[in-house]
């Protein structure tokens, strides 16, 4: 993997007539934590979905780990995990079964599933169906999904959303653990003060454009 983990060059994406992203460019060094800030509708989620290869950019190029998000989609997917607004869970399956599905598709042992559920605080509810979970518990399980993947690049879209205070601590702990492992993390959040304690870099989006890019301590709240 290059020293640059994420390289975005003049990326643009539109929905209908509206440009959600317009000529966005930035680079993210490997093993760093980047906080992406911006108001609702600024383009954060669209940017993350482009980087995760869920959608294609209409213009520009984006590379993750040296792989192009359009041409080398499967390579990008192999090294990337995303925590999205959609939780990617099956409501009729239990927490354990949801992670078993992920493990089976990744062709890894199901042995690690219970460990991950313990890590995200859901071990006691392992066999309850997700339909009975609160929004915060679903978010925790989505985190479990990411931990199971062991990715090199993690995209966290509003990781603190719907969580209780212990959940906030869990997110901080997971991010610090991922950072220790050398994982590159991009995180869209409104919890600026909290995130700044471990962020190496900040990007501020406004109406689909990067209006500020700096080291974490330089951007005012």
């Amino acid at each position, binding site marked *: 993997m290059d020293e640059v983990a994420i390289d975005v060059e003049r990326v643009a994406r539109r929905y209908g007539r509206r440009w959600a992203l317009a000529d966005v460019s930035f680079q993210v060094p490997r093993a760093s934590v980047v906080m992406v800030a911006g108001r609702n509708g600024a383009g954060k989620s669209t940017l993350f979905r482009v980087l995760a290869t869920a959608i294609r950019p209409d213009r520009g190029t984006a590379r993750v780990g040296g792989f192009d998000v359009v041409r080398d989609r499967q390579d990008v997917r192999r090294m990337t995990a995303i925590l999205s607004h*959609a939780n990617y*869970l*099956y409501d*009729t399956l239990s927490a354990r079964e949801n992670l078993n599905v*992920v493990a089976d*598709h990744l062709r890894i042992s199901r042995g690690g599933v219970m460990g991950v559920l313990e890590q995200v605080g859901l071990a006691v509810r392992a066999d309850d169906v997700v339909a009975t979970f609160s929004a915060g518990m679903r978010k925790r399980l989505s985190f479990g999904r990411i931990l199971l993947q062991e990715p090199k690049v993690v995209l966290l879209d509003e990781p603190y959303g719907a969580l209780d205070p212990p959940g906030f601590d869990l997110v901080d702990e997971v991010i610090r653990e991922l950072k220790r492992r050398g994982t590159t993390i991009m995180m869209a959040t409104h919890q600026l003060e909290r995130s700044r304690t471990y962020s190496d870099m900040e990007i501020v989006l406004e109406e689909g454009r990067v209006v500020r890019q700096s080291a974490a301590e330089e951007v005012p709240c």
Partner: protein
Amino acid sequence: MLAAALRKELLLQWRSRGQMMAVFVFGATALLLFSFAIGPNAEMLRTFSSGFLWLGLLLSSTLTLAESFHGEMENRALEGLLLLPSDPRALYYGKAIANWLQLTLLGCALVPVMVILYDAGTLQLLKLLAIIMLGAAGLSAPGTLYAAMTSQVKAKQMLLPLLLFPLIVPALLASVKATSLVILGDPMDQSKAWITLLAAFDLIYWSLCGLLFGRVVED
């Protein structure tokens, strides 16, 4: 990867097994209504029984096929699997096989209803099972693809039959003819030709739809 996808599909189907009973009741009700349309003419009921069986299965299939993508779209679970990454073809064949098994089961469950309502029994049960399996395969392969295509639109319950029915006419025709020959007798041994035609269409559907699925579900 296919085994993982199939295991997941069967688990999801098992969890929603209550719906299968509702779909069976819907199919059986359709067969009952067809019998009212013909009236108390035993010979005509028997003659049209295979057509009614397949119409009942066809109408029921639109419910099961559309439902098979409900769980995938609710929390964008399908997108989650694609981003892991999973091979779209494995996801397609896993779902198509699960739908095929479900439709085969439904077809077999509707046979006794057909026998009771239309007095259309046969002793060639294995041959009838083979035709139901092949016919269900002809419904499930394109049905799964079109269910994926229509799963994100508002009018999916209307669009799915509109898109699906014209495409499966050849398979449906072959299924009806082969079933009819099994029930009414086959002195000229024509059923083999219809079964071969049905198998040929199945082969085309299963090959093409598997290739197209990736384009349908990706951006």
